[in-house]
């Protein structure tokens, strides 16, 4: 690793040397904070316009944990994305927002968000930088007036200095830079230290039951929950509701993906959540309707509802719906799902409140 860093520094110095008029100090690339992904992980996509830097990530982390980003100072991003709860909140539908009204979506984990193309449960946000506007301003969430947020942050000398360090080419306390910094920090929230990962790296063995569970997941839960991220980051209708549920109420929120694409064929589809850390991220589904993993598996075996957009994967050749699993197979799947738990996340000092 050291060699890599030295090489980076050299290349940078070389190019800086060729560029005499360059006076501004560039932020240090975030090599020291970027996780070194294991070989079986896909490379982390990063937008060219917002490369991760040490100072940018540091700023993002300060903002992520700062309650002054909510209207009355009661909430930070971490209120609903808690490190000790795998960056989710463990609640079906939170009502701790400024309006105290129950939200219509479950707070998803932020782990491995860097790989998600279309964010939110319905994919309405096309990049992480754009997404954070929503929780910051929504009246049922942090309900902050962004003009006021900018003023408050600019009046804080610690923030002012950190914005300058993080964004030296445009050293402004702006919402634009708030969003960029928050996105940089969120991209560092990765999880790849589970027992399963050790198994793939041939550093651990799985039990007979865990192995059986892995095979069952590969046979019956893919391609939606395909390895290595255990999600295809695509949108599917997994049979939670029937067609009558897809209405235009509340800006068509029950249409899921369909309300974003305006395509009836996408009604009832939601982004596949990862199975990683699934045993610590109950409750489940976009509205948190299932409190336990048993309920989830029972849904797939017994309770899938027919609708016009139901995933073909949940229709059997003989016309029956859902997935066929015996009780023993369900137990094996659950024992495998436990191997996807990465407890290092819970205590990773780089993720915690600064």
């Amino acid at each position, binding site marked *: 690793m050291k060699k890599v860093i030295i090489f980076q520094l050299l290349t940078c110095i070389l190019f800086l040397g060729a560029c005499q008029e360059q006076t501004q100090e560039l932020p240090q690339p975030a090599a020291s904070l970027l996780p070194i992904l294991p070989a079986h992980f896909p490379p982390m996509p990063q937008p060219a316009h917002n490369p991760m830097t040490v100072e940018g990530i540091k700023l993002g982390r300060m903002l992520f944990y700062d309650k002054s980003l909510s209207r009355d100072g009661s909430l930070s991003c971490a209120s609903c994305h808690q490190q000790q709860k795998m960056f989710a909140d463990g609640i079906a539908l939170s009502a701790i927002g400024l309006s105290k009204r129950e939200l219509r979506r479950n707070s998803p984990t932020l782990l491995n968000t860097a790989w998600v193309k279309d964010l939110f449960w319905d994919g309405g946000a096309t990049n992480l930088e754009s*997404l954070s506007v929503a929780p910051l301003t929504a009246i049922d969430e942090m309900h902050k007036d962004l003009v006021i947020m900018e003023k408050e942050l600019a009046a804080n000398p610690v923030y002012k200095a950190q914005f300058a360090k993080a964004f030296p080419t445009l050293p402004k306390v702006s919402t634009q830079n708030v969003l960029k910094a928050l996105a940089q920090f969120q991209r560092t929230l990765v999880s790849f230290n589970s027992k399963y990962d050790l198994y793939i790296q041939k550093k651990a063995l799985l039990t007979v039951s865990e192995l059986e569970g892995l095979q069952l997941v590969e046979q019956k839960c893919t391609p939606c929950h395909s390895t290595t991220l255990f999600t295809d980051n695509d949108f599917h209708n997994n049979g939670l509701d029937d067609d009558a549920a897809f209405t235009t109420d509340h800006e068509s929120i029950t249409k899921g993906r369909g309300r974003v694409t305006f395509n009836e064929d996408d009604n009832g589809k939601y982004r596949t959540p990862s199975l990683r850390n699934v045993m610590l991220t109950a409750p489940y589904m976009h509205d948190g309707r299932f409190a336990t993993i048993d309920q989830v598996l029972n849904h797939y075996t017994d309770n899938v509802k027919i609708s016009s957009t139901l995933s073909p994967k949940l229709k059997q050749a003989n016309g029956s719906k859902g997935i066929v699993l015996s009780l023993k197979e369900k137990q094996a799947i659950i024992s495998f799902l436990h191997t996807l738990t990465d407890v290092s996340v819970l205590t990773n000092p780089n993720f915690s409140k600064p």
Partner: protein
Amino acid sequence: MNSGLLKYFVFSSLLPVVLCLTACSESAKEAVKPQEPQTSLVIQFDNVAGGDDLQLGKTYQNGVSEDFQIDLFQYFISNVVLTTKEGKVFTVPQDSSYFLIKENRPATQKVKINKVPVGDYTQIKFTIGIDSLRNTADASKRGGVLDVGTSHEDEEMYWDWNSGYIFVKMEGTSPQINTPNRRFLYHIGGFGGYRSRTINNIRTKTLALPALATVAVGKTPIIHMKVDALKMFTGKTNVSLAANPSVMFSNFSVQIADNYVEMFTIPKIDNQ
């Protein structure tokens, strides 16, 4: 070195290079910048209601005889293109071609376009709203008026649940609206969809100038752009506020976009 590390190595080694190169080219550009005299042009937006200056809170009537008051009216203008009498086209550099005009903030109604080539201009073309590329661009490409933090929450021009800009926003009240607060909310946007085709309310407007707008050193012409707010409800189709108190991201919004394209006229040019 295994493949994962190699990928990381390549990526992380290139990153500083790209950073440095970007910085280099920018400073190099600065160095060769020619010392040209500044020539510019002003577009003065004047929001009106029919023949009168628009007044927030004043009662107006739409095409179906409903009374209403407007309390918020604002819109994006972008991608301005000017044409001279010889047919030479000047496209305002895109990064400085986004303007948010707000009725309650007079300073926003005067738009100055700098570095306009000397010439006699006869035509202006512009987009009402924001092009699809900027709508979906990363936040870094969305500074200035496109930065959502530049507007207080009631003046916000952005949908965050389905990322995209609101192009034209009008809010107010009408006694004919049968809801407790009698408010109407017209938030019109929609750039055509990111991964699949959705509503496209981007409209472009081309207007011939009523006289030559002469841009020269020391001569900054003012294009007076009249924007008739009533056309929101009458432009092509008569719209009833009682029947449509809230128009946002829905198929009906297309009719409003077809209406608001009719708002813009240029009654006069001031050459000075």
